């Protein structure tokens, strides 16, 4: 009998020549992983071979299951380890240790078995990632702080639709280790309207659902491949943002400003146009949900003081449309994030009031975009009575070193509310963001509450 300690686990190993390797695992926050190593010596056991459909050799099934009441193999090789997010390195290390210890084994057999073990490790990994869904849902438990701090960042990709877009999303998700699959909203209506007078609002036409096809296709494909690993949460723009796209305001900032001014002066006339864009956005939410979205990151917009808040235009004319998206998402999806977007404007405490009655499981407020005194993240959880997402400014991580960003994570998490997801004011980071930098910050945040007790 050869035994040695690996971390907190006791590792027992019996030498042998031939082996089949059975990897038996299931996952909590820790993965418990048992390798049954059956040697070509008679093995008096009743291993759960049927679980993986793996043929076992030299099995002698005379163990009395009735009396033991469970499966038991006296010659199993057992180890327990944390297969937390950065599992691969650790896993490789364990395999290396294994390799060193089992010296009497036929080398080719061992390599074949390793391939097997890795294929199962891959399934263990995805099972683990499946738990990102639960790790996120745990944030909703306001009876206690979430020990694991999920992270929500995203960027716009060069490929907007098609397989290129799907691949970019997957690359970003895998490489940064963020906790959601956020599907970027990249659809822009084909119609363009020049808004000069209040009458021009009448020119906005209903948008056909067919225009959403490419956008929905990205949702569908990401849901197909990544839904078990993480929640699929597409972004949805606000009716104001989409109307601005129709006005050409995304290409020409002056047009966006003119549109805002026109709405401010003629809010009643703008209402039918807002209604039409709201309809297509609601359709997008419903269709995306049918195609696999778990919920939505809804960008609400307009109550910032520099636009409509001051004279009550937002509450009276914009909010009925803006809020519809949150209402529909709330009705049909299990989890939604309400993003309160400043879109270049500023908030004050009063302006934020308009959003307090919006539904949304989690709230993302741009805390660095307050005019004068703002709210802390902690105050925001008290006000909204929901978990809060945020902390960083949009550009900080990209323009600073990993160490500087980690120091900011320290500050943010030291004062964070009990139920918290790390993100940014507007979780869209610069498109050029260095993914390895993001990864370092994401991993640091995940375990921060365990490492800073």
């Amino acid at each position, binding site marked *: 009998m050869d035994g040695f300690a690996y971390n907190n686990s006791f590792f027992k190993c019996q030498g042998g020549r031939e082996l089949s390797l059975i990897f038996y695992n299931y996952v909590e926050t820790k993965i418990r992983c048992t390798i049954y190593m059956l040697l070509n010596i008679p093995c008096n056991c009743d291993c759960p071979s049927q679980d993986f*459909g793996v043929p076992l050799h030299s099995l002698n099934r005379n163990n009395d299951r009735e009396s033991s*009441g469970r499966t038991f193999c006296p010659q199993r090789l057992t180890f327990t380890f944390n297969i937390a997010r950065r599992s691969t390195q650790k896993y490789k290390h364990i395999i290396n240790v294994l390799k060193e210890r089992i010296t009497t084994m036929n080398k080719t057999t061992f390599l074949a078995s390793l391939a097997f073990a890795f294929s*199962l490790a891959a399934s263990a990994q995805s099972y683990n990632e499946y738990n990102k869904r639960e790790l996120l849902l745990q944030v909703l438990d*306001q*009876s206690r702080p979430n020990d694991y701090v999920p992270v929500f960042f995203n960027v716009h990709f060069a490929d907007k639709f098609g397989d290129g877009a799907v691949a970019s999303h997957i690359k970003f998700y895998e490489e940064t280790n963020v906790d959601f699959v956020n599907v970027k909203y990249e659809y822009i209506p084909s119609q363009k309207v020049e808004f000069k007078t209040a009458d021009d609002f009448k020119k906005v036409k209903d948008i056909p659902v067919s225009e959403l096809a490419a956008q929905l296709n990205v949702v569908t494909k990401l849901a197909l491949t990544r839904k078990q690993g993480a929640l699929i949460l597409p972004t949805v723009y606000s009716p104001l943002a989409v109307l601005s796209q129709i006005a050409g305001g995304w290409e020409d900032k002056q047009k966006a400003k003119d549109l805002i001014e026109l709405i401010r002066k003629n809010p009643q006339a703008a209402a039918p146009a807002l209604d039409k864009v709201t309809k297509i956005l609601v359709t997008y939410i419903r269709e995306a949900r049918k195609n696999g979205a778990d919920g939505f990151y809804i960008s609400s917009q307009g109550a910032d003081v520099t636009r409509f808040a001051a004279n009550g235009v937002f509450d009276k004319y914009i909010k009925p449309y803006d809020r519809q998206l949150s209402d529909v998402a709330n009705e049909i999806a299990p989890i939604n994030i309400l993003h309160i977007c400043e879109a270049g404007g500023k908030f004050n405490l009063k302006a934020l009031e308009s959003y307090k009655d919006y539904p949304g499981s989690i709230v993302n407020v741009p805390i660095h975009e307050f005019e004068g005194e703002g709210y802390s993240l902690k105050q925001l959880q008290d006000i909204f009575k929901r978990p809060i997402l945020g902390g960083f400014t949009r550009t900080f991580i990209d323009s600073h070193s990993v160490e500087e960003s980690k120091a900011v994570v320290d500050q943010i998490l030291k004062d964070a509310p009990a139920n918290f997801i790390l993100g940014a004011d507007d979780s869209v980071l610069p498109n050029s963001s260095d993914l390895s930098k993001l990864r370092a910050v994401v991993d640091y945040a995940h375990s921060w509450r365990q490492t800073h007790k």
Partner: protein
Amino acid sequence: MNKTIKTSIIAALAATTFSTATFAQAPISKRERIFQVLDQSRPNEYVPAAFFLHFPDKLGHKAVADHVEFYEATGMDFVKVFYEIAVPQIEIKKASDWNKVPVYDEAFFEPQIQVIEDLAKRYHGEALILPTVYSPLALASQTIGHENAKNIKKLADQDPVAFGNAIKNLSLSIENYLRVARRRGADGFYVSSQGGDGNSLSPKVWNEQVRKWDKHVAEVANEIGEINILHICDYGTPFKNAEALYAFADYPASIINVPLNFSDGSQLDLKEAQKRFGRPIFGGLERLGTIATGSLDEAKAAVDKVLENAPANFILGADCTIPGDTDYDKLRAVIEYAHTWRQTHKK
């Protein structure tokens, strides 16, 4: 190619395919349905439901089979594993005998852990595995023997410190159980708190000796579990009123399972309970009410009444274990009725 290599590669492919197939099939799991209840920004549309009853087989593979049968037959929303292992009886004739109670190590709980482990292997990806945890007081009752349990209060009063030691050791024993259960497949726990009802123990003994160790169990569960339910047990000894119940608001737990009737004749307002505990509520039906004794229609009428007045975040259940002979088919019908109730009863 060497035959063994071939076998290994085939096995590798088979295993990968098998695991992929399992994941691809996963619908919205019952696990996530329970997590959704925690979202207090809105009511849970799907009302999960669960009832518990003791099975004839306490431990071993037959107990596992009983749990499987019950879970499958009723369609309930989590796998609640019964706590059926009893600490050994110790002769406690005089109050100082409480000092004889030891801390039981992890190995002591192994038969119970095996039931949890087997159920976890079967249901881990599908439903939350929430084993029951008894209170230190319940283990004290096992220690003295149920026929002598009526003497606990008197013996505790005679030597509160010795009794406190016993409670502490039993609480630490339970902690051992929790930690090993979590490692072996439990997602969280259904933690029973007992003794704070003002009747089972004198308030002095409860406050000075028992409460912190009773609470300790919930704290350990809170530290290690993904999600926990606190069951505030009043079995046979009701709380005086709702205020006495709310004294437990400082116990950690994700969801609270509440008693319904108080000794002053009042009843718990479930909505108020969510507000005061700040957490979702589990319960609503009386364990010996229509769910146990009535027809299906009567049970459904009781569900109507409960859900009409339920708090926004709610799981349907009973205030404690229901009788062992309750008809599984009736339970299934009630559970299914609850699941869709909020969709079918929209105003």
